[in-house]
Structure formats: structure tokens, C-alpha cells
């Protein structure tokens, strides 16, 4: 056995190399984690099939001709929320609890690269999600409309808003509370945040407030483009931007690493 020489040769790797390694690790761990896979990939697909059944409500009064064209963008919004908010918050919360973040703080990895690595990993999960949801949608005769660039913009801003909110939760609450809260908020936003049930089904006054939730903005924006071929949803984009703009400095200020 040849012993390695320990003569010092300190120095940090280039940031791109750190980022690639970090994002790769985080992504592989997400795919290996059964709960994360369930939350981000399996449940959205199941809900896609479920909400495509004309059970809970009719969409005819909304001018929707084909139910699947409405359901796919809704499920895309849910998927983004699952990966960037609930999944990220729970994962990061437990990493903080079990000292992973602390230990990484004892290496040359800058915190900015750690956060960037997590972001890239979430984006990679979202690519898998979009592929699977699009495939399942196609199997149910979904026809996408609209401008894919606007869809991309919505997904990125949605990820920014939900991701920073998730980090804010994970960095300030105990891991167990983060776990409970991230799941509960997910469910509440799914049903009452304009994702699965369109806000048009709510009383007008309530819907006027709820439309500014990040979930409602993301789902409404995606449906506008993909279902109704609407133009650029400025209000929704702006809403998401404001959420990200508020949550980001708050997370930077209050996030506790240990």
C-alpha cells in the first residue's frame, strides 16, 4: 500500500469545479431520497391523472375546452413548488440539524457556491419533472400552446421565489417544524393557493387577495400562456419577483448555518 504524501498544498478549487461537484452531489442525493422522489415526481404525476378526472369541479365556465390543457400547467406549478419550496426546505432543514451545513462551512466551499449548487440541483429536478409531466400530458392528449420562453421565465422566477422562501424557513426554524410547515403549506397552497382549484371558484374578494400568493401567480401565469396562449403575464412575473426580492434578503439576514 502506498501512503499518500501529506505535504501541504492548500488552495481552493475554481468555483465552477466546486459548483459542478456540489450540484451533482445534491442532485444524486435528491434522486436517491425516496421521500423527495415521491414529493417531486410521483405525487405530481398522480395528481395530474386525478385532477384530469371531471370530479371536483367543472372548467367549462372558465372557457376551458379541454381539461388536460388546464391541468398540465397547474401540475407544472405544483411541481416547481414541490421541488423548490417543500423539497428544498425539508432537505436543507435536516442538513442544518445534522451538522452538514456546519461541516461544509469548514471547507473551502463558499456559501454562495453551496446555495448555487442547491439551486442547480433543484433546476435539474425540475427538468426531470417537466419531462415526465409533458410525457404524461402527451399520453392524455395534451396540446401545449404559447411561448416557451415565457414558460421558462415563469419557472425560473417561481423557483427563485419558492426557493428563497424554502431556505428562509429551513434556516430559521427547527428541522421538525420545517418538515411539518413545508408539507402543510404545500397542501394549503395546492388547494387554496390557486394551483389545483382555480381562483375563479373562490368568492371574488378572497380571490383578489389570493392572486398575489406565489403559487397563484405561478399557476395563473403558466395557465395563461400554456392554456390560453396569452401574452407575457407581467403581473404574475412581478408578483414572483417581489416574493423573491423580499425573501432573499430575509434569508441572507436570518439564515442560521448551525
Amino acid at each position, binding site marked *: *500500500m*502506498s*501512503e*499518500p*504524501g*501529506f*505535504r*501541504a*498544498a*492548500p*488552495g*481552493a*478549487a*475554481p468555483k465552477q*469545479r*466546486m459548483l*459542478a*461537484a*456540489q450540484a451533482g*452531489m445534491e442532485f*444524486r*442525493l435528491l434522486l*436517491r*431520497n425516496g421521500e423527495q422522489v415521491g414529493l417531486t415526481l410521483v405525487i405530481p404525476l398522480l395528481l395530474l391523472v386525478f385532477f384530469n378526472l371531471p370530479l371536483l369541479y367543472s372548467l367549462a365556465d372558465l372557457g376551458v375546452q379541454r381539461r388536460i390543457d388546464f391541468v398540465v400547467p397547474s401540475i407544472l406549478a405544483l411541481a416547481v413548488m414541490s421541488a423548490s419550496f417543500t423539497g428544498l426546505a425539508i432537505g436543507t432543514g435536516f*442538513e442544518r440539524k*445534522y*451538522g*452538514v451545513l*456546519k*461541516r*461544509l*462551512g*469548514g*471547507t*473551502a*466551499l*463558499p456559501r454562495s457556491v453551496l446555495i448555487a449548487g442547491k439551486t442547480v440541483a433543484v433546476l435539474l429536478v425540475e427538468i426531470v419533472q417537466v419531462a415526465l409531466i409533458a410525457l404524461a400530458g402527451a399520453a392524455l392528449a395534451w396540446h401545449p400552446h404559447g411561448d416557451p420562453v415565457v414558460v421558462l421565465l415563469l419557472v425560473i422566477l417561481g423557483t427563485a421565489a419558492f426557493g428563497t422562501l424554502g431556505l428562509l424557513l429551513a434556516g430559521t426554524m427547527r428541522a421538525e417544524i420545517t418538515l411539518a410547515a413545508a408539507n402543510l403549506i404545500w397542501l394549503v397552497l395546492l388547494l387554496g393557493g390557486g394551483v389545483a382549484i382555480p381562483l375563479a371558484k373562490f368568492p371574488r374578494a378572497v380571490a383578489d387577495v389570493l392572486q398575489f400568493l406565489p403559487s397563484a401567480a405561478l399557476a395563473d401565469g403558466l395557465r395563461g400562456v400554456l392554456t390560453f396562449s396569452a401574452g407575457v403575464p407581467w403581473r404574475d412575473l412581478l408578483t414572483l419577483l417581489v416574493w423573491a426580492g423580499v425573501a432573499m434578503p430575509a434569508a441572507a439576514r436570518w439564515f442560521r448555518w*448551525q
Partner: protein
Amino acid sequence: MPPVAAVEIVDLVKAYGEHRAVDGLSLRLERGCVLALLGPNGAGKTTTIEICEGFRRLDSGTVRVLGLDPVRDAARLKPRVGVMLQDGVGGYTAARAVELLRLFAAYAAQPLDPDQLLEAVGLAAASNTPVKRLSGGQQQRLSLALALVARPELVFLDEPTAGMDPQSRRATWQLIRRLKQDGVSIVLTTHFLDEAEELADSVVVVDAGRVVAQGTPAELTRTGAEGQIRFRARSGLRLDLLRAALPDGADVVEQDAGHYLVLGEVDPQLLATVTAWCAGQGVLAEDLAVERRSLEDVFLELTGRELRT
């Protein structure tokens, strides 16, 4: 200007609420040397080390690590310092051992070869095992490898051999000696006095957040008595009589019932005096042993024999 010390701590104070965990501690580690922090549970060793690593903030005093401030200069310092925490590996526990080591290697400009390093710490066979499935001692060894993979010039090892079996402990000692040979500066904490004696150039004994003794292992064991004779006999021997027979400067105590310790300049004369006196009393001295005063004796004298609560 004197060369920059690996670690220099002056009058460090850190309190948790009312309790001063570190209370005016000072120490200095020269480049390329090994310093062992020794002290009972709760003495403040981890607190001191984690302040040096930048994980905790100090209340007062100064800490310089490689001449830099652990918090203000963290970005410059981290690539140069290796860290082994007391409470577990602390990496992604779902990752395989080799994956985690490769990840940490990717943070470094010129890392060691992860596979070779795993072999050096005896984990080659477990390299594909998820971190959380490794045994306690295996996790310690992985944790050591993670501290070394970036080829740091200074490492902080908080209880590096805790939970290791005797073979791994010996192998780890060998590895730490290799580190020192290759010029790496090392701060370690330990409860094993033989470990400090084996590895350290200087030993700092801390108790209740203060330094109660420091020096080379030889210096520490030399202070006080030169040596001692230990023997076992029935309890309640008339020690006043034995004391009268002993040469000047020697003393005897009954440590526990039936366990006697003669302290003094151990020479043939002293040994003969003890055995002759026992013979005169019709006492059979069993397990009689001439010992050098060990670091353990020094430690127990300095920090007391009772269990702290």
C-alpha cells in the same frame, strides 16, 4: 519578526450565559508541531478549537490562526485548514464514503487522491458504503480523511481516535506522525493520555476553561516526583512506621484500600527499604511495580480524581 505561529491564542474567554466555558486561555503552536489539548469533559477543548475554526465567536481575547483572524479572514483561511469535528462526520449521510471524499476533494486545488486516502485510513473495503451505515470507528476514520483530503497546512482534530479499536488507533497515530513528518501543524484533543504522550510535542492541560499545566510530555511527567513504587497488600498497614523507615523526601500513601503508592527518587535503596519493611511486618507485597510517573498521574493530580458533575 518572529515566524507566524500556526495557532496563537491569548487570554481567550467564551461564556455561555453565565458560565465561562473558556476562561482566559492562552497557548501557542509553532509550525510543524503537534499540540495536544487534554482535559476532563466540559473543560472547554471543543469550544476553543471551534473558535479557532471560525464556527463560534469569542467574547474577548485574541485568536490568530496562521496569522489570520478565523472569522474575518475565513475565506482565506478555510482552504488552508483541515477540520475534524467531535460530533460525527457531518457530511451528507446518504452519500457513499468515497463520494463524500471526492466531493471534498473537488473543493481543493490540489487534493490528495481520494481512493488512496481511503486506503490509508483503512476504508478501502467500505468505500461504497453509505456514510450512515459506517460503524462509529469507520465514521471517525472517514472524518479524518475528510480533514486531510484538501492537503491543509494545519489540522484541528477533535478527539480523532474516539470510538476506534486499538488497531485503528495505532494506525491513526501512525498517520498523524506521517502528517507531522510532512510538515503539517496539528492541534488535537484527546482523553487518552498515552495518545498525548505518543504524539504531542506540547501538551496543554485545561480544566474549567483555564490552562492548568503545559509543556512537553517529558516536562510534565518530570515535575514533582521522579518515579513511584506501587504495591498491593492487606489494607491498613501502619504507614507512619513505613514513612519513618523511608529516606528523606520519599512518602507513601494508601490510595485505595490495600493499594499503596511510594513516591520519591526511585533507586535500589528505596526499593530495598520498602520490601525489607514489608518483610519485617510479615506482609506480602503483591504486584509490586516500579513506575515512571505517567501523564495520567499528572492529569489526575491536576484535575482531581473525583467525577465532575
